[in-house]
């Protein structure tokens, strides 16, 4: 499809661009009159995110009903972006994440009232836009540019809190690690281009299938180098080192966005690149010759194990959730290592579930940080028994147990399909490692629950009070986590369609 026609299918992204410019103008206008930004930038950003979501759902013929109902799709902008069920699924997920994070930011004490608040929402929207592009990229150039776009905005968002040494250090670490990883990735992409002579995913697939066996070693090197870039984005071991510092240093809504949105976009790109870019002509034929999948399996095992073991001793909630999110990337990688349709579907399902439970957990952490100014586990002591603390405590317990993968919560179903995919494709050792990991994980999640429920509150703790507006999103997320644990058939059906990548 040509550029002009494509615009009609680019409405969600256009909505984000429009909102982005509007925030810029509003911010400039207010700053010029030396007025505080107030509610304006946040509200505009919220509307923009909502519009993007609405257009993703309602795109004529290609929205949810069009693409998540049946397989199929089309190319946009002359084979740069793909619009198929897969990208619609991720755009929905990312749109929801963006919407939730903007909403979260509106109530965050770290973000609100800063002189450069307008910039913050601008960057958030830009980051969201870049993630939308990542989910749809069907060309090496587009993939690299959108990934870099996300990274650049994330670096700035991480360092958003001025005069905060933790934030500054985190942003710098993120930048340096990101630079190395993206350098490795583009190097790998250049190898791939050299081997196949094209940047188009379909062209790459065709050329790889016809590749001279002597060049398989070069292909392996290229794939591994590209994997480094993706691994960095999803925080997989050994490219995870930035995550704990960045998650701790960034403002909590940004942390949530990185953990939920950035990871989902990274997996979107990873799946599309490998399933559709490299192996569309038959995964066995291409990958059997190189030890790529065993490498992914080992990375998955290392990611889960290291994430969980490191989380055991964390005292800061953001850091604990950072390591837990590393571990969860490992579970999702397990499903990727399966390298079959069942695995793709499991990843999609897992990411949707992960959105609910992880975002919810961060939301409660933010509410607590707003109320007490603290982020350590100690601050949660006896939360359930403090005045006004019972609801957030119960909600956080739901999120944490869901993260631990206990039924009847959504996290269990997510893990179940990941492990089921592993068993189906005979990756027994990895499944056993994953299951043992979930026992380890339970310990640190339960540690927080223990602090909230089993410990008595300190005598001097003041009562907490949260507004209905602050608690209702948490309530919605925890209720959804529970409901999705019981009724998940509808999501499985959607995922089954979205998992079939458009290969036209």
């Amino acid at each position, binding site marked *: 499809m040509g550029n002009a026609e494509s615009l009609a299918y680019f409405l969600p992204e256009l909505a984000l661009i429009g909102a982005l410019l509007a925030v810029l103008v509003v911010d400039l206008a207010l700053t010029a009159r030396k007025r505080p930004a107030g509610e304006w930038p946040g509200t505009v950003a919220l509307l923009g995110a909502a519009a993007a979501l609405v257009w993703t759902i309602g795109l004529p013929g290609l929205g949810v009903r069009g693409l998540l109902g049946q397989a199929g799709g089309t190319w946009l902008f002359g084979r740069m972006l793909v619009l198929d069920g897969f990208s619609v699924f991720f755009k929905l997920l990312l749109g929801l994440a963006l919407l939730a994070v903007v909403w979260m930011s509106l109530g965050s004490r770290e973000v609100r009232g800063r002189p450069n608040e307008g910039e913050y929402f601008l960057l958030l929207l830009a980051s969201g836009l870049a993630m939308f592009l990542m989910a749809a990229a069907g060309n090496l150039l587009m993939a690299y540019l959108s990934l870099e776009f996300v990274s650049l905005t994330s670096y700035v968002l991480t360092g958003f809190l001025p005069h905060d040494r933790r934030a500054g250090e985190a942003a710098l670490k993120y930048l340096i690690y990101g630079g190395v990883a993206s350098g490795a990735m583009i190097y790998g992409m250049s190898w791939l281009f050299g081997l196949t002579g094209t940047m188009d995913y379909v062209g790459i697939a065709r050329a790889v299938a016809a590749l001279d066996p002597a060049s398989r070693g070069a292909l392996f090197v290229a794939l591994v180098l590209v994997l480094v870039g993706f691994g960095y984005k999803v925080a997989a071991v050994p490219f995870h080192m930035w995550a704990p510092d960045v998650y701790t240093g960034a403002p909590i809504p940004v942390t949530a966005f990185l953990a939920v949105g950035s990871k989902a976009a990274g997996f979107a790109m990873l799946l599309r690149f490998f399933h559709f870019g490299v192996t569309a002509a038959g995964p066995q034929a291409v990958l059997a010759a190189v030890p790529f999948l065993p490498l992914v399996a080992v990375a998955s095992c290392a990611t889960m194990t290291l994430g969980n073991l490191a989380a055991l001793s964390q005292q800061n909630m953001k850091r604990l959730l950072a390591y837990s999110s590393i571990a969860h990337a490992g579970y999702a990688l397990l499903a990727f290592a399966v390298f079959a349709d069942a695995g793709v579907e499991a990843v999609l399902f897992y990411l949707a579930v992960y959105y609910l439970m992880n975002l919810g957990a961060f939301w409660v952490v933010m509410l607590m940080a707003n109320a007490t100014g603290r982020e350590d586990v100690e601050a949660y002591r006896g939360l359930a*028994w403090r005045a006004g603390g019972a609801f957030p405590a119960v909600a956080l317990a739901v999120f944490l*147990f869901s993260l631990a993968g*206990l*039924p*009847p919560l959504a996290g*269990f179903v997510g893990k*179940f399909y990941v*492990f*089921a995919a592993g*068993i*189906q494709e005979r990756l*027994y050792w990895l*499944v*056993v490692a994953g*299951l*043992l990991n*979930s*026992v380890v994980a*339970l*310990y640190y999640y*339960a540690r927080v629950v*223990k602090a909230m*429920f*089993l410990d008595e509150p300190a005598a001097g703790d003041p009562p907490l009070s949260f507004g209905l507006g602050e608690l209702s999103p948490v309530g919605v997320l925890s209720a959804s986590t529970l409901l999705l644990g019981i009724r*998940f*058939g509808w999501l*499985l*059906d959607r995922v*089954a369609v979205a998992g079939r990548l458009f290969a036209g």
Partner: protein
Amino acid sequence: MQLGVLTWMVFFPVLGMAAILLLPSRAHGPIRWTAAAATVLPLALSAWLLAHFDPHAAGFQFVQRNTWIPAYRIEYFVGVDGVSITMVVLTALLSFLCIFASFGIEKGVKGYFALFLLLETGMMGTFVALDLFLFYVFWELMLLPMYFLIGIWGGPRREYAAIKFFLYTLLGSVLLLVALLYLYFTPSPHSFDMTQLGALVRDKIPLEVQVVLWIALFVGFAIKIPAFPFHTWLPDAHVEAPTAISVILAGVLLKMGTYGILRINYGILPTATLAPLWGGHSVAFWLLAALGTLNIVYGAVCAMAQSDLKKLVAYSSISHMGYVMLGMAAFTPQGINGAVLQMFNHGTITAMLFLLVGVVYDRAHHRDIDGFGGLASIVPLYTGVTGFAFFAAMGLPGLSAFISEVLVLLGAWQVYPALTVVAASAVVLTAGYMLWTLQRMYLGQPNPKYAGLAEINGRELFTLAPLAAIVLVLGIYPTLILNLQSPALVRLADQVRAAAPPPQVAAR
């Protein structure tokens, strides 16, 4: 969708839980009575179930079957047969009684009863589920309320006990999950149907793999029983848990382990169960029999060494669960009938014991056996009930445990004479620690410190009396239960035998 009687039994407590959550947290009275009301219906329905249950009908009864997740052929599939009906009745009865035993809870009343009702749903669901996925969900569903009930309302070391219980059980369940997934993916189309799966996978899984699956399942269940050497969570959990929760733990949760072995290990993997891997003998049975005997002796020896009354009862539980394993391993009609009967009898007797420990602990605030003395002259009625329960636990003829233990020993004698001798001699140990405890606590010179100890009250008697009546009736007329379970057990045994490997392997 037609809601069957079992569905009401499983989910009615959750409705009660929802009602409790809507009540103000200070309304202790209404909360308690709502909880009681929520457990009455399952109890009434279980009585109805007993009346309408046809022991001779082959297959499952009161079945309800609805699709849940069509894409993966996961069903909401429940039903009872002779193996599970006694467990369902036991669950309903103990849950009802334990609500009353919990009326003394003063801290976080709303949360306690809400979680308790959730726990009942989990237990009931586990015993009636016939879809493996559903079974696993209910199995895990029990963990959360149990963790909180021990961890918040327990004794001084409650946090340690709660997390230990939680981690141990989860470790068992993940092994279960791997095996379940493997079984699910073997037949085509994939199936979680517990009633069909055995036949579907029999010829499709090589024997070695079946044995590995058998072991994974067995370890998962053995942790729950708990079989030596997986038992160490039990004394901690039982001692720290509040009285009613100890009752539920010992009365119902331990049975899930043996129930799981019967239903899943025997029912779905009969070939591995009978696999003659060692000199023509079934290693599985030998393992069960040896661990069972070890449980009996080890539990009794440990019980003898305890100075804490509750810990003594906890170890006696380990010992008595050994009989269940021994009977199941014998696999003769007497043995297996005795085992399942023992599951029910142990549920009622150990419930009495824990309730009685709770009675004295509520008054004296300690459970040190040597810290009392001569209680018989201070609280004669309490002593009388305790004596009855102790004698029942000892296996005194005329009381229910005697029948089941004798059946187990009779059954086991035909297969494992040596082990049976050891197990039977352990009865002396049991009598030893029980009588010694009776003597130290209730006989002798009254301890002046407890001269004013209050007699057992009406509410406590109300929780104990039905159990005592059952123990007595089943001691005299065990046919009541045996008639219910025997046809199903004999059928199960026949099914397992029918799946035995070809004779030439056995003759080797």
